[in-house]
């Protein structure tokens, strides 16, 4: 990747296709923590680099898996991304957040690798996830007619262990969730990974993927509902 590409990734937060509501004008896209770590990185602090890798490596691997077919290639793409980050760090001006910049480099490299390997998700699959008007929750679970139209006909049943800790301790629940996430279409998977698995703020996800907040929530809700339904099936 050349310097122009890295710079253009950094400029993503000023993309005119993003809704005006999302274009917050600010002198720096960096959080205070990122500002601190960036200063340490630029002074050659290897501990800071380790922290950066630990913080973002999971997200990068999961994102890369969206565009390439296997884990081994995803690892290579992520390693290339880290190399590009190291080499471009001194040119990073902080106009976007550090995470947005790094994820942008990853997406660029992973798409490029996916295209070269002809294994990337087809564009039709990308387009289908929010062009149609399908509801996230299966409409047949609601009353269709009568005074109670729109109310639950087949309501969700409570899960026995309704705490995150107990669910995480349940191999069955975690496995079903991971499988559900793996099998999501690319456009649903990327929003769920960024927003829920990695905890990226909604506004930042929109900037990164160049989508509107409305699109984000259409996709995110479908993704979450599919994962919820998978856990429901596994525990039911």
């Amino acid at each position, binding site marked *: 990747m050349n310097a122009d590409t890295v710079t253009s990734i950094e400029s993503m937060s000023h993309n005119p296709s993003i809704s005006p509501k999302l274009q917050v004008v600010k002198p720096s896209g960096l959080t205070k923590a990122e500002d601190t770590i960036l200063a340490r990185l630029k002074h050659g602090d290897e501990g800071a680099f380790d922290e950066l890798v630990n913080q973002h490596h999971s997200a990068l691997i999961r994102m890369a898996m969206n565009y390439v077919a296997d884990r081994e290639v995803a690892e290579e793409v992520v390693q290339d991304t880290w190399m590009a980050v190291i080499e471009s760090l001194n040119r990073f001006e902080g106009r976007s957040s550090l995470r947005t910049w790094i994820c942008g480099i990853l997406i660029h490299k992973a798409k490029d690798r996916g295209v070269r390997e002809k294994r990337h998700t087809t564009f039709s699959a990308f387009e289908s996830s929010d062009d149609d008007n399908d509801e996230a929750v299966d409409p047949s679970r609601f009353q269709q007619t009568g005074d109670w139209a729109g109310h639950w006909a087949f309501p969700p049943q409570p899960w026995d262990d309704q705490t995150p800790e107990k669910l995480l301790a349940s191999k069955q629940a975690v496995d079903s969730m991971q499988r559900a996430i793996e099998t999501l279409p690319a456009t649903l998977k990327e929003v769920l990974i960024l927003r829920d*698995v990695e905890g990226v703020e909604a506004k930042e996800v929109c900037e990164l993927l160049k989508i509107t907040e409305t699109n984000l929530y259409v996709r995110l809700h479908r993704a979450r509902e599919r994962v919820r339904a998978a856990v429901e099936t596994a525990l039911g």
Partner: protein
Amino acid sequence: MKDHRPQWIQSGPSCRNVAGLASEYLDDCLPVLTNVRVGLHLASCADCRIYMKQMALVCEVAAGLPKQYPSPITRLRLRQHFACCHSPSS
């Protein structure tokens, strides 16, 4: 964001409406009026409370999924490259 369910102003949302807005409700990004309507519905509907709780759990459990780290050899390679490009003395 615009309130995209104006018909609720008179009647209040159905369970189907509430289920459809669960993600925005959980992320606290609904318009104020819609947010209040959804909250009122949840106060009186046990089924929707279960649905909302399950969606919240999905988000929380997703956040707690196992982290992934580079292999020791990859980490070593990255550290060496970092040291080479950003040595404090350079």
